[in-house]
């Protein structure tokens, strides 16, 4: 499977995805950083097996900057988790795409659980998503996967130098390179060069969130109904 022949290698991004109408509408900055990151869903997930995150690092022990990076990373992992998990659930993909959705879904879910566990009650809640048909067809799925993975690589790359806790840094760089593997894998499946350049550039938080908002994949703010509340009366 190939993109249109005139697609310049290395320029596969959400603008390219837009071509088949999956994400046609103009960018709308519906979701400010606060919308994406705010929330109070208590983390149920334990730290994922095999993920090198510090068990001892309870929420309160992390510096504010690290917590902010982790909450931001979690918001991006929610997006990827939801995308692949929905593709699996819909069951419309075939062959290598089907396998990829299954493998990547498992990995992104593990990232989500790990970050939720690390952030504890300070973890942002999971938003609601509408992937606008991109989980239901091989071509749209792959192009969206490429864009999401490339974006994720650029996002982690920009955050890594700001992380203070060594264990969190180690986990972040280990995830960063895994996301790059995913990006290359999806690119190979879609038929564009897996490594477009000798250097991958970082992308800051505002630019990343603006791109995410432009997809309109996030359809609702933090669902308040899932917020855990203490009952006012008991007995």
């Amino acid at each position: 499977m190939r993109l249109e022949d005139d697609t310049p290698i290395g320029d596969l991004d959400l603008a390219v995805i837009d071509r088949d109408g999956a994400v046609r509408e103009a960018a709308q900055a519906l979701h400010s950083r606060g919308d994406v990151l705010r929330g109070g869903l208590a983390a149920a997930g334990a730290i994922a097996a095999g993920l090198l995150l510090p068990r001892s690092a309870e929420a309160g022990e992390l510096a504010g900057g690290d917590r902010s990076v982790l909450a931001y990373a979690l918001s991006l992992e929610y997006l990827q988790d939801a995308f692949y998990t929905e593709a699996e659930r819909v069951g419309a993909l075939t062959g290598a795409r089907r396998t990829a959705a299954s493998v990547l879904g498992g990995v992104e879910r593990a990232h989500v659980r790990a970050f939720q566990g690390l952030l504890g009650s300070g973890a942002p809640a999971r938003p609601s998503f509408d992937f606008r048909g991109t989980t239901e067809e091989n071509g749209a799925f792959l192009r969206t996967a490429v864009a999401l993975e490339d974006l994720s690589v650029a996002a982690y790359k920009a955050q890594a130098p700001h992380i203070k806790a060594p264990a969190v840094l180690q986990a972040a760089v280990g995830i960063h390179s895994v996301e790059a593997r995913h990006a290359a894998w999806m690119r190979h499946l879609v038929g564009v060069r897996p490594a477009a350049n000798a250097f991958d550039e970082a992308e800051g938080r505002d630019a990343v969130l603006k791109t995410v908002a432009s997809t309109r994949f996030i359809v609702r703010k933090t669902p308040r109904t899932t917020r855990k509340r203490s009952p006012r009366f008991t007995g």
Partner: protein
Amino acid sequence: MITRRKILIAGGTGATAAALGGLIAAGSETARSDPSASQDAEVLAFILGIERIESGFYAAVARTGRLTGELAEFVAIVGGHEREHVTFLEQALGSAAPKAQPISADVAAVANDPQRFVRTAAALEDAVVAAYNGQAANLRPETLARAATIVSVEARHAAWIRDIGGLPPAENTTDEPLTSDGVRDALRQVGLLS
């Protein structure tokens, strides 16, 4: 690109690195001590050594002309990337860059066997990813930021060659780091280091 050429090390050259003449510098263990300009130089000298192995390996394989199709494309593209990485690191280190050494590999045997080439290149790229990840905490933030622009490209190479060869491109939830000794062991196992 100018921004990229801006020296990775902002001041200080690390006489330690100059003293490390080997193909892969000694030391550079994970989380050794607080980041500093001299430690950055030491780490980058180690990284330069493995980038030279990659660059030299792909150049030698390309010269044999034995690989065809997508494997030949992989060698040409990735070899070009590795040369850029070497140039970048040499410029960053300046006079602190260790001397280049000839690579140790039976290149003809590898290039004559596409399956062996895939296994060797996959092991090499995986080891390089683990090498960068293993050094992340040893670098000052500004140096880590530049190194991070390379490591994800190495991870892309790893996934690409793995997918060509029918190996899982991304097997794990995270990429495990390796110490410099671990990297050297991994390279010895595939004959890229004596």
